[in-house]
């Protein structure tokens, strides 16, 4: 059968779209380049919103990218169950789009943070984490300026109680995220936002581990078996 097709949206200011495409290819799917200014998802089976500083992160991280032309189609398709993974800036865009609750604010320490980060996968049932086991510890680079996950108390309780916290920081909290949250998902589990960068941990030559590959192989296996 044909390989699954995973779209990667490039915004002006995206940085990690090529890395995400490479990770998708390594996982066995065909990466499809999508352009923020189009109104066409090209019939892809899943979408990755990559890291970077879309539209310069002017105003707030992800605030302007949220209104990119292609986001109209993406928000509608995500509502219909299209698997979407937002990494770093992509996570910020998903929160600004209200596809995920809460928001990402400047790091509590006010510095850009870049480190190999230990995480615990808390939810291995989402479209993007099924290759992991619940409670599995992984090492994936984190690199952000605006990574402090924030939501009101009720939302935090709801996320925790409904198993929608996908990953938590271990050892230290690099950005002051509430409840050590590194990633969350929507109610249906098809939309996942993650502050660390799994696409930078897919090959031992360039990453601290290959622990990130599971996010991409999860979606590929799901699409192949669907």
């Amino acid at each position, binding site marked *: 059968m044909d390989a699954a097709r995973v779209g990667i949206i490039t915004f002006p200011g995206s940085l990690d779209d090529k890395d995400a495409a490479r990770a998708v290819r390594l996982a066995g799917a065909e990466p499809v380049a999508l352009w923020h200014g189009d109104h066409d998802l090209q019939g892809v089976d899943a979408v990755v919103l990559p890291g970077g500083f879309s539209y310069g992160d002017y*105003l*707030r991280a992800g*605030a*302007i990218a949220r*209104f990119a032309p292609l986001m109209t189609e993406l928000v509608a398709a995500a509502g219909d169950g299209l698997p979407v993974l937002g990494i770093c800036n992509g996570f910020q865009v998903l*929160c*600004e789009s209200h596809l995920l*609750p*809460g*928001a990402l*604010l*400047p*790091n*509590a*320490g*006010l510095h850009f943070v870049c480190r190999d980060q230990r995480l615990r996968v808390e939810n291995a049932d989402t479209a993007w984490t099924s290759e992991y086991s619940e409670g599995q510890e992984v090492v994936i680079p984190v690199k952000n300026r605006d990574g*402090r996950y*924030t*939501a*009101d108390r009720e939302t935090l309780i709801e996320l925790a109680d409904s198993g929608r916290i996908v990953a938590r920081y271990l050892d230290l909290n690099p950005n*002051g995220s509430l409840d050590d949250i590194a990633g969350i998902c929507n109610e249906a589990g098809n939309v996942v936002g993650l502050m660390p960068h799994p696409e930078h941990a897919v090959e031992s030559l360039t990453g601290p581990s290959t622990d990130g590959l599971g996010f991409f192989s999860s979606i590929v296996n799901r699409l192949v078996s669907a």
Partner: protein
Amino acid sequence: MARVVVDVMLKPEILDPQGQAIARKLPQLGFEGVVAVRQGKRFEVELEGDADEDALERVGKIAETLLANPVIENYEVHVL
């Protein structure tokens, strides 16, 4: 032409490390008695025509849609 100001502030319960950094610096500069500083954003929006009720409503919509993120921020609209 009317000029309308939108002030955007983080909600009071949200940590503002930039404001804290500013507040910590003040005693070193000889400014005593400051309990806290919170940093926000001010937008000046220039409009065609007068700042009538319709115009202010429109600016409120702009604030709610783009200038502020209601999840984390409050905003106020006033005429300059």
